[in-house]
């Protein structure tokens, strides 16, 4: 049984991505008791799957390292992974939150030595790499994973592999009878930081993501650019492993579209600008980059980055929502059809690889919140007093980039601190 001490002065943070970690750490470093829930087996969320950040082109791993170090060193912070909220009842200063913890089958005494992984043979799509590679049935999600503990895929439970993994563990860290558990936490305030998921590219039918091998999403391209990713950082196209030198980026893939997501996902323009640098860095003068866009939203000081990218990557910017993509069957090249609206130029452009700058949608669908919250039409949580002491942080509140998500989460931490301070009677 997981022992969690939680009281009306405890802050519960739901979601362990960059926003949730930030909110949790800021509150915990101010001396508040914090419980952080994460659905995945490790912290870091989507940013752990990014290669670089815009506009500095620095590495998210760096920030993850420091945040994880903060987490490891802070006794006021309790982290529960594989945990999801099932119910929320109560009022500000006094919530009862039902939490379901799925089995990891690996106990805390795991040393991450990797013997179980070597012992098993089953393989599954690696979700960390968006299925671009395989991982074993016993696995460490990634090298920076925190907690640094292995996980058994539930699909191997009951199989011979599970027994092999157990037998291989010298530390008796594998518990095949782990059935998860349900907890009820008493907390004073809740920070909802459940983040986003990439929009399902299959639904954008004209772009043929489901039928053209060399049409991929921006999140996949990000993994591809990462030297520790599925291709070792080589920009190659899925169909034939050919080097992808002529790369097209399609903006608003799913965003700003009443057929898909009504909102602008904000990050995609900047993410594309960043990704053009991957192509330019990989191929130098041989890089041939096209960006198909409606508006380039390099807002406020990101304009500098836009200017720098235009200068250094020599990317072409075409104001056009691509109408459809067909495949040149002879060479596997995607062919983009559409109209450059600046002066009406019809095109049928062939590229090695097409990257869909995929939109971000809230992780939790509007009808699946375990608690009634004021949501907008797009499914983001509104800054509404009627939400009581349940505060959105980061992308749960709107489509935000990392920097803005962290700003927002820091403010959300304060909102929660205010509530538990009131509970503690510290106002006096």
């Amino acid at each position, binding site marked *: 049984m997981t022992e969690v001490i939680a009281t009306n002065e405890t802050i519960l943070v739901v979601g362990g991505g*960059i926003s949730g970690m930030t909110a949790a750490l*800021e509150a915990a*470093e101010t001396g508040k008791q914090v419980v952080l829930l994460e659905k995945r087996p490790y912290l870091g969320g989507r940013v752990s799957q990014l290669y670089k*950040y815009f506009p*500095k082109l*620095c*590495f*998210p*791993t*760096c920030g993850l*390292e*420091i*945040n994880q*170090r*903060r987490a*490891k*060193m802070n*006794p006021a912070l309790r982290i529960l992974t594989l945990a999801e909220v099932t119910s929320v009842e109560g009022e500000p200063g006094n919530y009862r939150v039902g939490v379901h913890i799925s089995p990891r089958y690996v106990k805390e*005494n795991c*040393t991450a030595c990797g013997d179980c992984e070597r012992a098993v043979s089953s393989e599954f799509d690696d979700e960390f790499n968006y299925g671009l590679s395989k991982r074993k049935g016993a696995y460490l999600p990634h*090298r*920076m994973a925190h907690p640094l503990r292995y996980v058994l895929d539930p699909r191997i439970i009951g199989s011979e592999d599970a027994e092999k993994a157990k037998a291989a563990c010298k*530390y008796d860290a594998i518990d095949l009878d782990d059935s998860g558990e349900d907890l009820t936490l008493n907390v004073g305030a809740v920070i909802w930081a459940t983040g986003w998921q990439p929009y399902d590219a299959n639904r954008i039918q004209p772009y043929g993501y489901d039928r053209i091998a060399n049409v991929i999403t921006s999140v996949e391209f990000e993994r591809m650019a990462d*030297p*520790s990713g599925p291709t070792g950082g080589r920009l190659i196209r899925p169909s034939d492993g050919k080097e992808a030198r002529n790369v097209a980026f399609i903006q608003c893939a799913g965003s700003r579209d009443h057929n898909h997501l*009504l*909102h*602008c*996902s*904000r990050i995609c323009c900047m993410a594309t600008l960043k990704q053009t640098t991957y192509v330019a860095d990989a191929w130098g003068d041989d890089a041939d980059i096209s960006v198909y866009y409606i*508006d*380039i*939203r*390099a*807002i*406020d*000081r*990101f304009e*500098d980055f836009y200017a720098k990218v235009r200068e250094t990557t020599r990317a072409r910017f075409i*104001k056009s929502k691509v109408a459809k993509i067909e495949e040149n069957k002879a060479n596997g090249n995607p062919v983009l059809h559409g109209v450059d609206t*600046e*002066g*009406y130029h019809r095109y049928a452009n062939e590229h090695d690889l097409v990257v869909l700058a995929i939109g971000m949608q809230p992780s939790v669908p509007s009808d699946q919140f375990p608690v009634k919250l004021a949501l*907008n039409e*797009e499914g*983001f949580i*509104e*800054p509404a007093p009627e939400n009581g002491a349940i505060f959105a942080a980061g992308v749960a509140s*709107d*489509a935000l980039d*990392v*920097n803005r998500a962290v*700003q*927002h989460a*820091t403010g959300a931490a*304060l909102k929660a*601190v*205010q509530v538990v301070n009131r509970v503690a009677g*510290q*106002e006096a």
Partner: protein
Amino acid sequence: MADDKKFGGYICTGCGIGERLDTDQLEQIALREGKMNLCRQHPMLCSAEGVQMIQDDIDNEGVNHVMIAACSRRAKVEAFNFPRVALSRANLREGVIWSRPDTEENRETTQEKADDYVRMGCAEVRFMEIPEPSGEQELNKHILVVGGGVTGMQAALEVAEAGYNATIVEKAAQLGGHMAQVYRRVPTRSPYVDPQDTQVADLVSRVMSNERITVYTNARVAQSSGAPGRFSVEIARESGETLNGSFGAIIQASGFKPYDANNLPEFAYGKTPDVVTNLELERLAREADGGPIKRPSDGKEVQAVAFVQCAGQRSDKEGHLPYCSGFCCTTSIKQAMYFKQQNPGCDTTVLFTDLRTPGAPGEDFYRAAQRKEVTFSKGEVSEVVSADGELRVKFKDLILNEDTEMTCDLVVLATGQVPNTGPDPYAAPLEAEDEEEEGGETAGEEATPQVSVSVESILNLDYRQGTDLPHLRHGFVDSHFICFPYETRRTGIYAAGPCRRPMDSAQARDDAAGAAMKAIQATVHAAWGQAVHPRAGDLSFPRFRKEGCTQCKRCTVECPFGAINEDEERYPQFNEARCRRCGTCMGACPVRVISFANYSIDTVGQQIKAVDVPDEYSEKPRILVLACENDAYPALDMAAMAGEEISPWSRVVPVRCLGSVSLSWITDSLNSGYDGVVLMGCRKDDDYQCHFVRGSAMAHERLSKVGDTLQQLNLETERVAVYEVAITDTKRAPQLINDMAKTVDEIGMSPFKF
């Protein structure tokens, strides 16, 4: 103090350590050479039983200095958490067995590496002291907010809501700032369809009636000094009255200045009153107050209005702002709605190049405007001409690809925000005694000549390194960190709102909450005597041996956070609550008098000394690697996890920041027979990744002169290499070490072996 130390060494034999290494030998080394009072082995030290074994020794044997030889210091941190105990970690797993091949011919060198790491771990812990909070401070629950606009008011209310007190200092006669002049604001709640009340009046009344908030209008900060937890601030009022206050932390919410549209004669600004800025339009809208908006020249009701987006922005022309101000697209949309609400037939055209309305609220608001028949044209405006009581806006229609023009009654220029910040401490050469290249480098890095920035100080800090928050770019005092947007380079002082980054009022209010969080946190940390981010919880702080100090001032100049002042006798004054504990001062000190309780010239120097350096004929070189613990060290760990081989000759010592590296460590190691030294810090240029901003840059600068030292020693300059290493360099970092091994192989062993 030394007498009270009792040392316990603990060696884990799990994770393959026991199989790969002779741990009995390690135990003997810990006891005999490492001078541990006791040493124990455990098959799984991080298990509850293993931890209990150590805890028992602490409780029963009086052990207060613990050396753990097991996995990397980055692993099992939670398990090996013993409060009030000095702890060192010898990295046998990632540092030795995982980064060396498991073959017979490597067994000897692998064991030797492990032996050395145990020696180093023992040496480090022997010279560590247990950091004690100075205990000089108590919790100061009073936050100073500089600026009484929307950001400042919101910050004060957030602070008060958390049970703290706030004092607002506002230079104008009234609270409200620019937003007080605004007619309606962009909606902040769904449906994002119509302009809303600005809520400024409500904010003002909430601020004025809050008993935790004190407001001084017509006032400014005349002087501020001290540190988090004890900022002493002199507030000067226009009346001549001066007040003194003590504050735990400071929020700078000094806002923006409207861009001076007189720089835009091409748009007829100043030539006709019918060309107005977005802020000026708000005044017209307020005057109209729901009635028809009239144009200033002759009071005619406006029937056609054009909004020129990016006026004087996103442009490298002289006098223009190079950045995008972020708020202007939604502001023009809102203002177009002013006209439409009163007169749906009014022609409202927004001329833009990229319409920037991100997120759900932004895009909804854009669509709402279209529904109200606000016209959006992708066009570049070249000129506005005033003639015959009409304005002609000449532009290139980028969609229809033609030069065209439209006529209207009023033109609104969507002009930007210029940050209202104090002078950048690093914009000009620091002071006469500073070396030229240093001043030159900072000036080059920070200067943005196009933007006219106020030179009047906002904070009037009495800091050695200047009166105000350092700028990032274009005069904004933003943080450089994506993951840590509130980290300024002045501890306990946080910027919020448009002085930090261009933004609208909704963002500014969110921003105020974030800055208030950090301000409250800074006061709490100051009271605890702990460092704030990125070494939150660290109780150590720099101390110096006064008698050894030559008053050279290197530490006061190099501190990336301007933490160190000089006292009346011209000795450094460390202001511990301002200190981030990076150790750059320690690295800067040529006479080695600065140290931290648990991180000092000795804790590293003795590790270097403890390594067994075989003689010249052994063909076993020794390479010292000083690796930044934030990026390079984790990169080496992850390289080991990935099975990358790292030279058997290398001995890696993690450092807090490359800035903390003392040249003495390098000269001492070379003098004692090391064959090469590799230094790994973080990226240091404009896009620096150093967690301590300038630490890595300072180190690189100091080390640029290490070649002279080598030449004096008659050593090849290749024996010392300095690199910028990122945390993702899991292949490159081992390679750099292996390259040094190759270099040593080529140029031969050091002649300084004994």
